[in-house]
């Protein structure tokens, strides 16, 4: 993988903003779905699909492609939008998210849409699926890499730790596996550390014999450099704990767990803008980058 030079970094940052806007538009049309996670992970998805992954949207079943396993399927709006931008399917199709007869199911379904590597939604089982895919690569002597995105709260699932224990066993040589944990500190019922504390998280993975890296999940250069380091690690899987801001880019959504599972227009709370204005305000803020620039739409 090439280093991320300044010109490309700027282009990717702009792209991530466009992806956030389209996520909001898509959620408004869908009328239900998750907002905070997709906005928080837009930078990482952009970096993966437009810089890190060795893939070909025109050939989604290309055997040598890198695999991206999304474990926390509920953040699929950002997956779908990024895939559409990358050319897997028309951007126009995003309007069908969560509607009947759509390829864009409310939680991703592998058989429905070419380019989806697995079906996910029930939490805690993506990591072990990624391990299975990575083991298949070893058996077939393939050099593709396996990336697995998980949420932080799903680490509360027992299956997750079964998988972490297996992957850390040296015999399995799962250095072809890189896990990215979206450490955004929120879950439906509140903040992770109130609901069921995860800290000390890095130490937990280290104790399970993983190579552990921590990055700012909104700094693409830092993220890409961590991915490169993971590729260089020998005989161990790597986990990149990416610290992100849920709802990133929309001030009234940031770090607010009320936006975990609802789309713009559906959060009724005295601290929030009136529901009928939530979509419009979110888009305005994204288009002006928090009023730093004048939007071309104005």
């Amino acid at each position, binding site marked *: 993988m090439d280093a991320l030079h300044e010109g490309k970094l700027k282009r990717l940052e702009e792209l991530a903003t466009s992806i956030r806007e389209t996520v909001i538009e898509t959620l408004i049309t869908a009328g239900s779905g998750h907002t905070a996670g997709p906005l928080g992970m837009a930078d990482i998805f952009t970096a993966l699909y437009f810089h890190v992954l060795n893939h070909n949207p025109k050939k989604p079943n290309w055997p040598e492609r890198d695999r991206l396993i999304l474990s926390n399927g509920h953040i699929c709006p950002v997956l779908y939008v990024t895939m559409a931008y990358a050319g897997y399917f028309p951007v126009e199709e995003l309007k069908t998210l969560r509607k009947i007869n759509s390829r864009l199911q409310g939680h991703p379904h592998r058989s429905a849409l070419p380019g989806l590597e697995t079906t996910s939604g029930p939490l805690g089982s993506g990591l*072990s699926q990624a391990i299975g895919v990575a083991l298949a690569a070893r058996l077939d002597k393939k050099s593709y890499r396996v990336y697995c995105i998980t949420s932080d709260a799903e680490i509360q699932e027992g299956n997750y730790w079964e998988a972490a224990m297996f992957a850390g066993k040296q015999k399995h040589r799962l250095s072809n596996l890189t896990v990215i944990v979206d450490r955004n500190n929120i879950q439906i019922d509140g903040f992770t550390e109130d609901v069921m504390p995860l800290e000390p998280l890095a130490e937990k993975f280290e104790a399970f014999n993983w190579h552990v890296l921590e990055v700012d999940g909104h700094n693409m250069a830092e993220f890409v450099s961590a991915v490169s380091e993971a590729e260089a690690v020998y005989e161990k899987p790597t986990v990149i704990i990416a610290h992100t801001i849920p709802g990133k880019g929309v001030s009234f959504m940031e770090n607010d767990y009320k936006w975990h599972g609802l789309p713009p227009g559906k959060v009724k709370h005295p601290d929030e803008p009136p529901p009928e204005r939530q979509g419009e305000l979110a888009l305005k803020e994204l288009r002006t980058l928090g009023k730093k620039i004048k939007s071309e739409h104005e």
Partner: protein
Amino acid sequence: MIMLNPEAKLNPKIFDEDIEMKPTRDGYSEGLLAAGEQNPNVVALCADLTESTRVEAFAKKYPERFFEIGVAEQNMATIAAGLGISGKIPFISSYATFSPGRNWEQIRTTIAYNDSNVKIAGHHAGVSVGPDGATHQATEDIAIMRVMPNMKVFVPCDAIEARKAVLAAAGVWGPVYMRFGREKSAVITTEETPFTPGKAEVFWDSSLRSERLKPQAVLIACGNLVYNALLAAKELEKEKIGTIVLNNHTLKPMDEKRIIEMAKKTGAAVTVEEHQITGGLGGAVAEVLSRNHPVPMEFIGLQDTFGESGNPDELMEKYGMGAEDIIKAVKKVIKRK
């Protein structure tokens, strides 16, 4: 006169005292090994029960294609799901109470819905597990797997059929559940006995050689209890009560055509299974017949109760799954016509 169906090519020593006894899990072992020889993409996973689920032979011959998961059935199912969407044909093995018992949701989402090519072997099925008691006696597994879209379900009647079922599972695309018993059971079939997934076989038919003894009920059985059904049919024959015994080894997809045909021919049905009568074979046959050709039915199996410790013969008797119980059920169902 013995009315075994000659086309089924059953073991000629079937009613001898010294009939060969072999657990169906041994058939799993042989089938897995053969599948591994035939196809390099076959891999095996086990959750710390390599010896008792008979994965040992495969693990020794193909160590690079065997994955010891430890005591973690959810992880076993989901790692297999990942392998299965990457061109491998994973077989996962544990006791059926744990897999598919404990990891049902993982199987549902990541294997069945995901259409991952995983084969699930549930061992120690039924109360014949014996002394270990009800925690280790799976009596609900057929129901919880049969209900799952995209899943096929095989319940082989003996060790030879078990081997064939494993090879068939390896050869067919998509998720399959297979059920095996711990105890030795009668080897009633031979290598020549037909086994086609989804096709129930007539093992016994009173009308085959004597038109005078019209079959009055069909015994639809699966697993090791096919043998008890045959023993019952033989005894009933002595009392001039004709029957048909159907080996219903595939619980999904059901051989609806054959079941309807036999119900029409006999006018009554008794299902025989080492499983809860709700949701298992009894439920499946009732679903087919109620929609197509309702006839009086009786159900041999566990009647909404857990098993317990004991030796297998005692347990079969106590829970009403012996040949005597089947004979009573046949007489009762005929009276209800």
